[in-house]
């Protein structure tokens, strides 16, 4: 997968996480960003257990926050992840 840039900012918003996740999944699944539903369950997108942990790791690296490996299991939609991760900064 090619690179996706995290926003160059000290403080990130829910929207930043949502945009990053949407772009990441659009690249991974080879669809347009518009086709990514922020309310859809990650499982319904076809992601397996291993990939959800991998995505959590990439999100953690990009935004510089400590995220648990079960993040996408505990927060199963982009919207849920964004609203949770934004509280961790």
């Amino acid at each position, binding site marked *: 997968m090619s690179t996706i840039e995290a926003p160059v900012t000290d403080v990130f918003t829910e929207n930043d996480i949502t945009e990053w996740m949407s772009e990441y999944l659009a690249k991974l*699944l*080879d669809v347009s960003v518009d086709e990514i539903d922020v309310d859809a369950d990650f499982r319904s997108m*076809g992601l397996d257990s291993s990939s959800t942990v991998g995505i959590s790791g990439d999100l953690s690296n990009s935004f510089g926050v400590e995220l648990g490996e079960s993040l996408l299991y505990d927060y199963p939609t982009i919207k849920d992840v964004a609203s949770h991760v934004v509280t961790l900064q």
Partner: protein
Amino acid sequence: MRETSQVDGGRQITVGISDRTKLIQQMHAFGITVIPAVGTVIAVYLAFVNGLEMYALTLFLVFYFMTMVLGITVGFHRLLSHCAFKTGPVVEAMLTIFGCFAFQGPPIYWVSNHRRHHGHSDTHGDIHSPYFKNEDKTGGLKGFIYSHVGWMFDHKTTSTIKYASNLFKNKNMLFINKNYYRFAVAGLVLPALIGAFVAADPLEGLAMGFLWGGLVRVFVSYHATSSVNSIAHMIGSRDYDTNDTSRNNAWLSIVSGGETWHNNHHAFPSSAKFGLKWWQVDLGFYAVCLLKLLGLAWDVKTPSNHLMNKKNQMLNKHLKEH
């Protein structure tokens, strides 16, 4: 100021999964190790007592060819893991579904494990080496058992994002991956139903179809595949100098669909042809050739004579030096 991050840099080769997912993996490993073995003992016993009907043997052979040759070696291995040839979406989906019949895990899991095996062959990152049990060195009988069956119970989960991200772009693949268990079970139900239809006694046909086309077939394909991980890294001959212990084993080449020309495969991983000499029987490659003849496969990769000679000379030079 936060720096720009790269999502494909510095990824781990394994990921931590939940206890629940680990338990499912271990139950799957237990199931494929024990249930087909029990079914095979029963089937062989019944064959000794009552004899073996031709339809049961035919179901075994046909479903074995679909699973081991078309599904595992041609589909999961040569096509999905190594992109050794190209085909259309329908053939690709069929080969992948046949691979699910083997009960060796969903395609994306299988492919990521296999690519990890090639990236770390016979080192501590290898998922099923006879010489490493995760981080610890092993070998001998313990190493054989670990690489044959043990790894399935305690392996660290391979990152599918790192090793098989290309497959997530394929909608058919995601559908089959998600419905892996349904397709795997269909591989047991189908021969049972055919058995019930063709046998004089439908109930007996159902049982014999389930046993021979289902459990015995899964048992043999499971151990044929596992022998590539264990035996083909321990004993056999080497025609090419590779940075691992891969070896060729002619005696297992037919039952494994050509998989046990394993030193050849590690020397030329992207080749669709594993049996590189005319006498090295390779059913998987013959199946790819048939698909090509029918116009259903193209861009079939094979190594040039020049490249094979060069690698062979490297081995001879290596042997002379040692």
